[in-house]
């Protein structure tokens, strides 16, 4: 099977600081790929390179078969992205946000209408459709962001700490949405600090100081480090980190 994300020695440096150092990994279609690491380990930098927001300093990467140097606009057509910072328009309503992003992704008006109904139904936000996004609780905003990132049916969706600051119940619901997306064949690339969430991933990589230190199924990693939880795996690896935010 052809990988949807292929990274080969992907590197980004800012001056003498190497934020991401020779990252090499593959992500398979339909996979939930957990991208773990302490604050400042270089996760966001790596993700921004994969999304075409940041130009790599060296190395290769192909997303959905497109090159990150030359085919970024093609990549953007095929990916969804949910940034760490909430980035929908707070002064637009739920419906208007969906319509706007649908529109600039090139959806036709009837498609947007259909998509809006579908998303509102999935998120159980039909009641709040005409509310300003500003008025929604954080957990709902995050679920909405996720759905907006999927509005154009991308092949891959990148989630940068999607559940930061969200209560455990909403987090669980959020992961239900992620599973639902993968059931439709979407590949999910997700960063998180919650180690229980790491257990939900098919495979995880753990980044320490810009380098991928471990990459495998959670069960294999636990076995390898001879511990019971991902939390302990993470702790064993991440405490070696010299740099922090």
């Amino acid at each position: 099977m052809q990988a949807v994300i292929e990274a080969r020695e992907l590197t980004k440096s800012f001056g003498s600081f190497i934020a991401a150092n020779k990252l090499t990994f593959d992500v398979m279609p339909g996979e939930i790929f957990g991208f773990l690491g302490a604050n400042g380990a270089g996760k966001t930098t790596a993700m921004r390179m994969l999304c075409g927001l940041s130009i790599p300093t060296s190395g290769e990467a192909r997303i959905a078969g497109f090159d990150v140097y030359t085919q970024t606009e093609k990549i953007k057509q095929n990916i969804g992205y949910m940034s760490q910072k909430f980035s929908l328009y707070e002064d637009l309503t739920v419906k208007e946000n969906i319509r706007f992003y649908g529109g600039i992704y090139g959806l036709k008006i009837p498609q947007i209408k259909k998509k809006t109904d579908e998303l509102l139904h999935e998120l159980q936000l039909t009641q709040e459709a005409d509310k300003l996004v500003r008025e929604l609780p954080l957990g709902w905003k995050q679920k909405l962001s996720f759905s907006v990132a999927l509005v154009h049916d991308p092949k891959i969706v990148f989630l940068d700490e999607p559940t930061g600051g969200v209560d455990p119940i909403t987090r669980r619901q959020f992961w239900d949405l992620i599973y639902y997306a993968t059931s439709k064949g979407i590949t999910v690339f997700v960063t998180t600090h919650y180690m229980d969430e790491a257990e939900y991933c098919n495979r995880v990589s753990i980044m320490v100081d810009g380098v991928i230190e471990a990459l495998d199924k959670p069960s294999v990693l636990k076995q390898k480090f001879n511990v019971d939880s991902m939390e302990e795996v993470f702790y064993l690896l991440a405490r070696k980190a010299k740099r922090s935010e």
Partner: protein
Amino acid sequence: MRSLFFILEKEFRQMRRRKGLIRTLFIAPIIQLILMPLAANYSVKNISLVVVDHDHSSTSREMVAKITSSGHFNLYATSESNKEALSYVEHDKADLVLEIPPHFERNLVRENSEKLSVEINAIEGVKAGLAGAYLSQILLDYNADIRERFLPPTHQAFVFRIIPIHWYNVFLNYYLYIIPGILVNLVTGIGLMQTAFNLVNEKEIGTIEQINVTPVKKFWFILGKLLPFYILSAIIFSVGLLVGFVFYGMVPVGSIATMYIALLDFLFALVGFGLLLSTYAESQQQVMSLAFFFMNILNMMSGLFTNLDSMPAWAQFITNCFPLSHFIKAMRMICLKGSGLADITPHLLYMFAIGLVFNTWAVLNYKKRS
């Protein structure tokens, strides 16, 4: 192309939701346009005059009456000594002391000449200059009058009389000159600041990141961000014209269509400049400082309050690079002189060229990736 529609729809929705901002954007210029022409007035009136008349003749009294009836001078006091008169100036009660020497009338008739002394408070340079000029004009005029009266026709020398005719602004109505300028100034402030703010705001709240990860073309996105400000600025300009008409009776001599062509050309340059600033700034605070810096230079160096022709050549070259100076000139030509498209073409071309530079620079500097 289709994305443009969705961007515009979003921009107008957001604009409509910021009711407070929109209210301010409309009410502030109206108030400014009503008040500012009253203050930005260079015709000097109410100059306070102290007369020291040592002559007490009918001629001296007639001369003083002539001065005070001109409308520029108020007789603050008459005094018997120069010292007392100067103390009024000292205490800021008077601007100007006119001293008439003893035997003024007699010497004038007998010796055919006499000297007058005028002392002017020059703390406010412009006012002092104009006060002196007004007074000499009145005195020269009066001088010619009395020559005709006292000298027999055979002894009369040739006397020049200059009667100026002021073209384009016959009554030297200051409002007609200053209102187009103030209006342009207001549109500049709003157009520049709001364009720059709006774009930086997306950077600050982080939505720009979400936009940059979509396949939307940079050109359409920028156009979608700018168009609303063309429209907003044009509406504010129109409201301003209306205020000028209602409160100051300003009716442009030239065609309104020509004026709007110049306006669109100007906005192309102005909004482009706002965009350029926003591509360099990361926060609203930064863009505010930048815009404020440029606004001050633009205001002071674009011929709104001062005359550009008296600046050194190198400084004039700089002002030629400001779209504002061209638009103010074009507006005055259209409003006062009735100039048509052909007359203002050089200014239109200048503004277009400047706009092209700003917009291209901004689009090149706006990056979807880093």
